[in-house]
């Protein structure tokens, strides 16, 4: 394929990923705003009834305030995630804690997984450091999660991370899944290579992403 065409296709995939994450997070924020809006409306309804002589129950008001506070906190957390995600595009490459990156990728993917009735579970070894593109790694993990979720009827998909054989290793597998491994596109293999990593898959092991540990340099391939 022509290099310019390939770059354009990669940029298009990156844009689609960024758009999907923004759509998912903004949808969640709107859900919080809807709950806050309805509780404000309920306060208005109760105030209206109070002007007509009905007493306002303090306990009811306390519960309304609690729900509003809860959803303000939830929306705030979602905006933090959106901000964190936006800054993942600040630099082409930097040192990353693999466990933190995976946990963040799982948070970003959570709603998409829920839509299909799936749940991602993590088991990450701490202190495994890699040096790669933050946005690219999140995009790759999103793509791998999508493939894993689409390729299994299991409710749970496990994401594990560890340092093994001088590499940083991410394994994604539905434990009860049998038979053919999830279908991975060529673009995901290419993205893994562009991050200095290597992607493997098998029916027994699921999906494995190997990345060089920080400071070791070179490619795992």
């Amino acid at each position, binding site marked *: 394929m022509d290099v310019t065409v390939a770059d354009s296709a990669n940029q298009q995939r990156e844009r689609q990923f960024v758009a999907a994450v923004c759509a998912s997070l903004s949808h969640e924020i709107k*859900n919080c705003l809807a709950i806050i809006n309805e509780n404000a409306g*309920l306060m208005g309804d109760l105030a209206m009834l109070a002007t007509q002589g009905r007493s306002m129950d303090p306990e009811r008001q306390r519960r309304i305030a609690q729900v509003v506070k809860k959803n303000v906190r939830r929306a705030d957390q979602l905006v933090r995630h959106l901000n964190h995600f936006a800054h993942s595009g600040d630099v082409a490459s930097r040192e990353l804690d693999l466990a933190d990156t995976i946990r963040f990728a799982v948070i970003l993917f959570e709603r998409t997984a829920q839509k299909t009735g799936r749940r991602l579970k993590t088991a990450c070894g701490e202190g495994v450091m890699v040096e790669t593109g933050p946005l690219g790694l999140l995009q790759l993990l999103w793509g791998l999660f999508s493939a894993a979720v689409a390729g299994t009827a299991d409710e749970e998909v496990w994401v594990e991370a560890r340092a093994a054989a001088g590499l940083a290793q991410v394994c994604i597998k539905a434990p009860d899944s049998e038979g053919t491994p999830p279908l991975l596109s060529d673009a995901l293999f290419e993205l893994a290579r562009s991050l200095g990593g290597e992607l493997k898959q098998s029916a027994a092991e699921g999906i494995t992403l190997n990345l060089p540990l920080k400071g070791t340099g070179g490619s795992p391939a």
Partner: protein
Amino acid sequence: MMNARVLLVDDEPDFLEVMAERMEARGVTVIPATSAEEALQRIATERFDAVVMDFMMPGVDGLDTLRKLKEDRPELMIILLSGYATIEKSVEAIKLGALDFMEKPADIDKLIAKIKAAKA
């Protein structure tokens, strides 16, 4: 009081509870459901003047649920709520028979007016 009987479907309990209370205060009898599956079970055995349903709930595709609801009960008036939906999805939903598509946070008085119009 309009005495409409509405099935309200949303996976967010906090939203469901307060929305039901506000709709009830406006003369609507609200039957809450927290999943598309529960909604489908309800409409198989009960009569409703309208269904107000979140378009994007875990484990289901909103369009698929809409299709199933209309297959089972073609006469059912369905109003969809969503945090956000593309124009394409909205158009598809209307083509499949949804009465309307409202964006969250929705104006409850507009929602009630639509339910009233559906019942008329």
